[in-house]
């Protein structure tokens, strides 16, 4: 049984107690400790900057050409905080409960409470950095609502909240980068972890411009490399999002938790053709004013504006009257899939539903709607060529956020000593389904407020590397570096006839069809067999042009797809093992009469954490989840 090392005491006191008792390092001694951070998204940049401010030596690696490009930049809608500025009875407790319930009671009480508790400081920090959040005419901060809650606690900067928060973190990072404590390396990809006596003590990275491979020592390693939803190929993620850093950590002993829990976002743009490389998200905030519907008749031929209200099925409002169009993401996505699968989908491929602003424009005027969502309507026009002020948007679910990731304890440290994991790359706070606007929050809270305290607490337990250990470290580093070189040589030598992208596409389609929005045993067993054979073919038929000594995007892709292929097998195994439905994990065998997720708290009230055993074999470890402060209920939004 895994121990998350949750501090003792009342729920509301745990984090304060932890901080009060966390070990410290004298400011003058901090510079003797070296911390490596992988990734410069919100959690990586904010953690690196905060640790450098404390006086630690920090070295940062990102595969981007600039720290500002990490995919946190694309988050649109907002960031949650329990400020209760709206006087709508919000509180830390309510936010904690909403998040825990939204995650279908598959996350840790203590972590979720801490997230809600730290949310307020994050808004203060971001405002101090100059993040231009939306304001009322009076000058006070403005809020809106997101799915799965009945209060307005979402702070936003038009439809570019992620960009603005990331720029705040990036600017803090660059400010430290100008000083003595932080070194930033762009265009460097982490390809392995150096371990010494079972502790993470460094990384092997590849310079993507020159191809040179180097080793770097550290006393603590932080992976903040984001999510892996791109494993489905078509997703809302950026082209370069990948699982390589966390997968390499996993292969070095770090457990992977609930890897099959991927959120499908309900308001993405639908796929239009086979050439498509990604799906673009339309912010959930649109559901504040947009109404979702499909025609009542599957044979409907009229254009949407010609269809009268009585022939429209506002299925979310019908099925979930209490939350309506703001039902949580897993439920909204599944409801859309249900309608589309039954033949009621709209659009040329009948794979979408309508998101209609007609009533909102009539009620509030076009100008107000334009102010709230102008850039999203504009984005919609650019991609589809259609005007959403005049006809409803067409939207569909798409792979989006990874609730799963590296298993971490309360300190956000993995079971591999010295290795921390922050933001989307860890599994922690969202349970089996993340609420909208909690992702930016978790990334920031992990980076700004939790890791500075917990990483120092860990470092205070160990000593900086001593001279007599250097020889052993160098040996381990050399061995790991050779392994990375051999891996690259092996892939380059295959010289088959299939590109990495083709394998990725095939893998993504297999996973989406059989282990996506809905899963069942039969389909997943079929997928497992197919994935083994794709993996086998990968090592026989992969084609990478060029060599490893210069810029080679195809080599970068191939390395990532190799890891994705291995991870996909674990994803299916994880989904097969969990014989219940919870949040985004919908097992068709386990549903209520009216098609809702049916949890099994007696047998599955635990986090699945998988240990890598080589050759597609894994051992399951369980972290039991205890709910001492809330009552486990069937999750209802009706």
């Amino acid at each position, binding site marked *: 049984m895994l121990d998350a090392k949750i501090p003792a005491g009342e729920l509301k006191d745990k984090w304060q107690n932890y901080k009060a008792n966390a070990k410290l390092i004298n400011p003058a001694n901090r510079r003797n400790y070296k911390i490596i951070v992988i990734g410069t998204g919100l959690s990586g940049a*904010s953690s690196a900057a*905060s640790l450098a*401010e404390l006086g630690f030596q920090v070295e940062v690696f990102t595969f981007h*050409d*600039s*720290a500002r*490009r990490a995919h946190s*930049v*694309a988050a649109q809608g907002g960031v949650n905080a329990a*400020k209760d500025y709206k006087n709508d009875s919000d509180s830390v407790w309510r936010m904690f409960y909403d998040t825990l319930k939204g995650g279908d009671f598959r996350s840790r009480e203590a972590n979720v409470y801490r997230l809600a508790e730290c949310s307020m*400081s994050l*808004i*203060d*920090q*971001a405002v*101090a*950095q*100059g993040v*231009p*959040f939306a*304001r009322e*005419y*009076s*000058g*006070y*901060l403005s809020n809106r609502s997101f799915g799965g809650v009945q209060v307005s606690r979402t702070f936003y*900067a038009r439809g*570019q909240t992620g*960009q603005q928060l990331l*720029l705040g973190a990036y*600017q*803090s990072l*660059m*400010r430290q980068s*100008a000083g003595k404590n932080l070194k930033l390396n762009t265009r460097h990809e982490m390809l392995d972890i150096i371990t010494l006596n079972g502790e993470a003590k460094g990384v092997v990275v590849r310079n993507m*411009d020159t191809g040179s491979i180097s080793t770097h020592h550290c006393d603590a390693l932080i992976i903040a490399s984001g999510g892996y939803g791109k494993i489905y190929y078509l997703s809302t993620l*950026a*082209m*370069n999002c990948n699982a390589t850093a966390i997968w390499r950590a996993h292969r070095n002993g770090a457990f992977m938790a609930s890897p099959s829990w991927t959120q499908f976002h309900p308001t993405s743009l639908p796929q*239009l053709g086979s*050439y498509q*490389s*990604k799906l*673009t998200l339309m912010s959930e905030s649109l559901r504040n004013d947009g109404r979702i519907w499909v025609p009542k008749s599957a044979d409907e031929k009229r254009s949407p504006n010609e269809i009268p209200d009585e022939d429209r099925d506002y299925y979310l409002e019908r099925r979930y009257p209490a939350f309506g169009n703001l039902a949580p993401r897993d439920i909204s996505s599944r409801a859309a899939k249900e309608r589309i699968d039954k033949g009621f989908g709209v659009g040329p491929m009948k794979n979408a539903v309508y998101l209609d602003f007609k009533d909102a424009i009539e009620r509030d005027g076009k100008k107000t709607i334009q102010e709230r969502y102008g850039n999203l309507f*504009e*984005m919609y026009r*650019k*991609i589809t*060529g259609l005007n959403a002020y005049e006809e409803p948007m067409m939207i569909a679910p798409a792979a989006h956020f990874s609730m799963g990731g590296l298993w971490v304890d309360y300190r956000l440290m993995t079971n591999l000593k010295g290795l921390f994991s922050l933001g989307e790359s860890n599994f922690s706070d969202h349970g089996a389904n993340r609420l909208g606007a909690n992702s930016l929050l978790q990334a920031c809270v992990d980076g*700004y407020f939790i890791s500075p305290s917990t990483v120092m607490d860990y470092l205070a337990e160990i000593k900086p590397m001593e001279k007599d250990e250097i020889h052993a470290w160098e040996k381990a580093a050399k061995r790991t570096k050779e392994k990375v070189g051999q891996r690259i040589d092996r892939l380059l030598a295959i010289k088959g*006839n299939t*590109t990495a*992208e*083709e394998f990725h596409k095939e893998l993504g389609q297999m996973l989406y069809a059989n282990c996506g929005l809905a899963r069942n045993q039969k389909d997943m067993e079929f997928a497992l067999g197919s994935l083994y054979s794709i993996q086998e073919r990968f090592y026989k038929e992969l*084609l990478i*042009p*060029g060599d490893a000594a*210069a810029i080679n*995007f*195809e080599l970068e892709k191939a390395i990532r797809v190799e890891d994705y292929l291995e991870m996909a097998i674990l994803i299916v195994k994880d989904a097969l093992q969990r014989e219940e439905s919870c949040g985004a994990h919908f097992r068709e065998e386990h549903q209520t009469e009216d098609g809702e997720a049916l949890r099994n708290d007696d047998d599955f009230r635990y986090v699945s954490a998988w240990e890598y055993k080589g050759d597609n074999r894994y051992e399951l470890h369980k972290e039991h989840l205890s709910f001492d402060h809330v009552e486990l209920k069937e999750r209802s939004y009706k």
Partner: protein
Amino acid sequence: MELQLHIWRQAGPDKKGDFEEHYLDDLDEHMSVPEMMDHLNKKIIKSGGDPVAFESDCREGICGQCGFVINGHVHSPEKSTTTCQTHLRSFKNRQTLYLEPFRADSFPVKKDLVIDRSAFDRIVQAGGYIGVNTGQASEANTTLINHELAEDAFDSAACIGCGACVATCKNASAMLFTSAKINHLSMLPQGKPEASKRLENMVTQMDSEGFGSCTYTGACEVVCPQDISLKNITELNRKWLWEKIL
């Protein structure tokens, strides 16, 4: 859909480059430009060639990674649009397209259509921040910022750091990029204490990176995918005049 492509190929920063021709006859008008490049590269790879190096990440116009010059248009023939958000329906069937990297001395070509924009990071590093350490912030609503000011600050802050403004400028000036960041931070009350130092340090760094001077042609504003206004530059010059000259 069919397109005739002339694509800039350059093996490295110090190598001589030239256009390479490709004809594609199986395109879909709803493809984005990078999707067309993926399609082309697949063909090149399968026929044993060297694929075109180009960058794009989010493919939704916000990360600032992508961008090339298409028939002389920086990013796109469409207004306020990045290369990744440009779809082939913006072109005519059988049109000839010339694809080139963003060109400026301060943005050296690394390979083909990939350029080095690290100069922008160094300008931000010189002072493009508010110097607040984690934990120092006071309650967010203690400083009121009226709606219009917050909106103006957002307009300047929306820059994605793509470098189109530099690529289109006949002087390769980085004034739009630099002034937008300076204005975003300095117009907000929390950014005022460092405003003077920020102005001086960022402008000095911009100059030392070799970017040219601004002669107000306004070409930058026209190609900016985020519609960053030329007013940012006049505002910066006004500040410079008051702070450094008068």
